[in-house]
């Protein structure tokens, strides 16, 4: 009996319900204390219908999906970079975000182009882009 070929795994996802703790820790970690993130009464937060998560938090969740994908494939790798990271809508504390990573048709065996997305539980696209992954 042969072991399952983990290289057949072409996609992975990471889901997380974003918490107040995530927002505040991310603000402190990044140093991005813009009022839209931390001041519910600020004009920016009022315009947005409440404080929003940092857009880069969505990149981090998509990056986690890439990390899970490569672990599922059993391949040591590193993300060499990102291209065309685009933000469509902000996420808010309480939203459940599904970050997805799928190996795209372009790229090669040791230079993968991984298509990444972040969506709400209802299927609204929040952000997408491409991760360039080097397999070692």
């Amino acid at each position, binding site marked *: 009996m042969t072991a399952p070929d983990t290289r057949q795994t072409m996609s992975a996802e*990471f889901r*997380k319900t974003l918490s107040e*703790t*995530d927002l505040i*820790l*991310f603000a402190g*970690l*990044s*140093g*991005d*204390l*813009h009022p*839209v*993130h931390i001041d519910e009464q600020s*004009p*920016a937060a009022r*315009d*947005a219908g409440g404080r*929003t998560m*940092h*857009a*880069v*938090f969505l*990149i*981090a*969740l998509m*990056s*986690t999906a890439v*990390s899970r994908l490569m*672990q599922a494939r059993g391949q*040591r790798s*590193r*993300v*060499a*970079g*990102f*291209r*065309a*990271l*685009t*933000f*469509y*809508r*902000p996420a808010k504390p309480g939203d459940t975000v599904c970050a997805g990573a799928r190996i795209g048709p372009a790229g090669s065996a040791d230079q993968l182009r991984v298509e990444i997305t972040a969506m709400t539980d209802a299927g609204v696209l929040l*952000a997408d*882009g491409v991760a360039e992954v080097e397999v070692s």
Partner: protein
Amino acid sequence: MTGLVPLAVGDRVHFGHRVTEADVYLFAAVTGDSNEDHVDATSPVGRRFGRIAHGAYLISLMATAGSLMHQRHDVASVSAGYDRVRFVAPVPIGTSLEISYQIDVVDQDSGRAEAAVTITAADGAVVAVGRHLIAFLDQNGSPPRRDGHAA
């Protein structure tokens, strides 16, 4: 016509930050990415370089620079995205970083601007680069969406 974009080519912000163990471990905790490269000193990467910061953490420092630029003018804008982000060298815990963010494209017609962002270590070596794309909003709150935030 006075343009919507309150920035000029060459406008620059920069700041320094030393990457702490707490930065890396809390980042792993909030993002769910506890890959061994970041939290296992005995992993291959850990033994070779030390535990290293997440790439997305470096982008978050780029975004913080964008937020500092935004707070200079406070004109409503959104972070439209990032492009051509490259992680050039590993960033172990304890590395002192300098984040430099400079506007190099201003397009008043489309209400857009771009910045080149470079992160260097204390020895001057570049560890990460990227481009930040900013969209300014007219009074109708377009384009492309409105949350009043630059980064």
